[in-house]
């Protein structure tokens, strides 16, 4: 009797077992995401745009959304055999939400025209900008990135050395600390008018400002890192025969690195702000300038495109910094994952 019951329930149990397995869940999640993007593509293609609107790139945008279904579906099926692709399951809710967002955006702009123009263009208008204006956007990305990289590295290097100096040397602390206290809290943007006047070019002025914005947090946090080093670390090194050089380079600096990275992270945030403001005001290149220029032409699609690119760029740079930190500070426990 009981064996019959067991046999009867084993079928559904097996099925339930498969449905609960990671492979099945990644298959279902991946297929759901693929279906959502296919639905977006269908919606864009077969629901005609609002009469009298002439949005270019509608078909291309639909094709792009539709094309996304192929790798998604492939990944969903491949997840059954390759555990590495089962991360589709984790991404699926976001992919579906993104598809819904695009569908809603497309509906209220191109299809129904509920939102006022030109402030709220449909998504294909942004695709149009990215494709048609790619040369100018590319040049702007390059200009922004160059300015940021030079200014940030200069500021970080000077800030790091200054921070170590005032954390280590009493003399340096005596002379630099008051200057730092007086000038550091001043927002770097307050220097803008003066900097563009003093420096020979707006490029060098911007580099100065970005370096200034980066340098202050890096200095303060490096200093506090060096100042907060457990004095027992120095005792140990001294009894083992370490000289001053060793104490600074091999004890103080490595011990201060977690603080230094907080400073580098904060400096990166402020340097983004200064970069955009400097480009908007005086540098006739870069994404900040592009934003300003697009606004002058009331080209809102261009602004959204520039914002999107800027967000990707900033997030990418911060990700890089965190990757570097994870690599260098792998000895630390419980690092925050970016």
């Amino acid at each position: 009797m009981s064996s019959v019951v067991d046999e009867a329930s084993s079928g559904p149990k097996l099925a339930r077992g498969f449905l609960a397995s990671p492979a099945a869940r990644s298959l279902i999640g991946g297929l759901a995401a693929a279906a959502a993007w296919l639905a977006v593509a269908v919606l864009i293609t077969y629901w005609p745009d609002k009469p009298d609107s002439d949005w270019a790139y509608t078909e291309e945008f639909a094709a792009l959304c539709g094309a996304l279904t192929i790798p998604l579906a492939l990944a969903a099926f491949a997840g059954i055999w390759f555990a590495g692709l089962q991360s589709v399951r984790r991404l699926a809710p976001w992919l579906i939400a993104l598809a819904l967002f695009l569908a809603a955006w497309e509906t209220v702009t191109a299809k129904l025209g509920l939102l006022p123009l030109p402030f709220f263009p449909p998504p294909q208008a942004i695709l149009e900008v990215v494709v048609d204006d790619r040369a100018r956007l590319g040049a702007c990305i390059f200009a922004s990135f160059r300015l940021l990289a030079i200014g940030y590295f200069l500021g970080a290097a000077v800030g790091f050395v200054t921070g170590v100096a005032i954390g280590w040397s009493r003399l340096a602390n005596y002379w630099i600390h008051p200057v730092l206290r007086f000038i550091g809290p001043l927002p770097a943007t307050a220097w803008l008018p003066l900097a563009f006047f003093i420096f020979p070019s707006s490029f060098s002025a911007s580099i100065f400002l970005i370096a200034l914005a980066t340098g202050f947090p890096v200095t303060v946090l490096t200093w506090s890192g060096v100042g907060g080093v457990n004095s027992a670390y120095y005792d140990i090194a001294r009894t083992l025969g370490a000289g001053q050089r060793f104490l600074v380079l091999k004890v103080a600096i490595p011990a201060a690195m977690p603080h230094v990275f907080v400073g580098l992270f904060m400096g990166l945030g402020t340097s983004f702000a200064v970069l955009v403001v400097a480009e908007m005001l005086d540098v006739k290149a870069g994404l900040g300038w592009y934003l300003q220029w697009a606004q002058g032409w009331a080209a809102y699609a261009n602004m959204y495109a520039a914002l999107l690119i800027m967000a990707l760029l900033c997030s990418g740079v911060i990700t890089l910094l965190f990757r570097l930190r994870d690599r260098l500070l792998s000895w630390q426990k419980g690092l925050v994952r970016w």
Partner: protein
Amino acid sequence: MVVAAAPSEGAHPVNKNPVRGTTLTVREVSHSFDLEGQPLPVLDRINLRIGRGEFAALLGPSGCGKSTLLRLVAGLDSPSAGGLFVEGKAIEGPDPSRIVVFQDPTLYPWRTVWGNVALGLEARGLLRTHRERVEDALRLVGLSGFANAYPHQLSGGMSQRTALARALVNDPNLLILDEPLGQLDSLTRLTMQGELVSLWQRAGFTALLVTHDVEEALFLAGRVIVLSERPAQIRAEIVNGLPYPRHRGDPHLAELRREVFAHLGLDAIW
């Protein structure tokens, strides 16, 4: 002040083959801290002589100034009065021939076990020529398999062993042990006590141990110097002539323990 035994060399067991040991002389050393403008006396006219290859223990109540005396011996601080001498030469600062193992292992968290042990050689620019000594030291403390581990992955006993290896790699003449086993659980502690003795017997350094554990002092040392409460004075010196390896259950140890407790004023609870 009771002096149980006059300190004289040869009266107590020293290491049979003292290869590198040194003599330490502490002469009329007094030391005080500045506490909000008031001098706080910590050490009061301490006189000590520790022979080559000897294992001596400083025993005293918590906060009596034992660790202060150690810092003076290590050269990390200078005494307010009196002098400390190694082989007749005044101690003027830290020197890699006198290494301290602190109560807290204080490993550098950013360095692997190997990197921590290599610290002394690296600081003195000897790492390139004496690399193999790092491996030797790790083998000596039984951590060869953990060279690439980071300190946060180690247990308390392993951390303290790493700290020991970091000291031993420098071939110290004088190993100063500041309650090195104080933070370990009791089983690890017993194991490490045995390991300390065999390390000392093999390496032949002079050892100066600070502890407030009477059993530990008597089990390890050839001579136990009992300090009074702050400001610390030498209250007694007890020579323990038992040969190594010792057995914890030895009746002679129990006798000595009673004697030490009496000097610490704890015979009532015994």
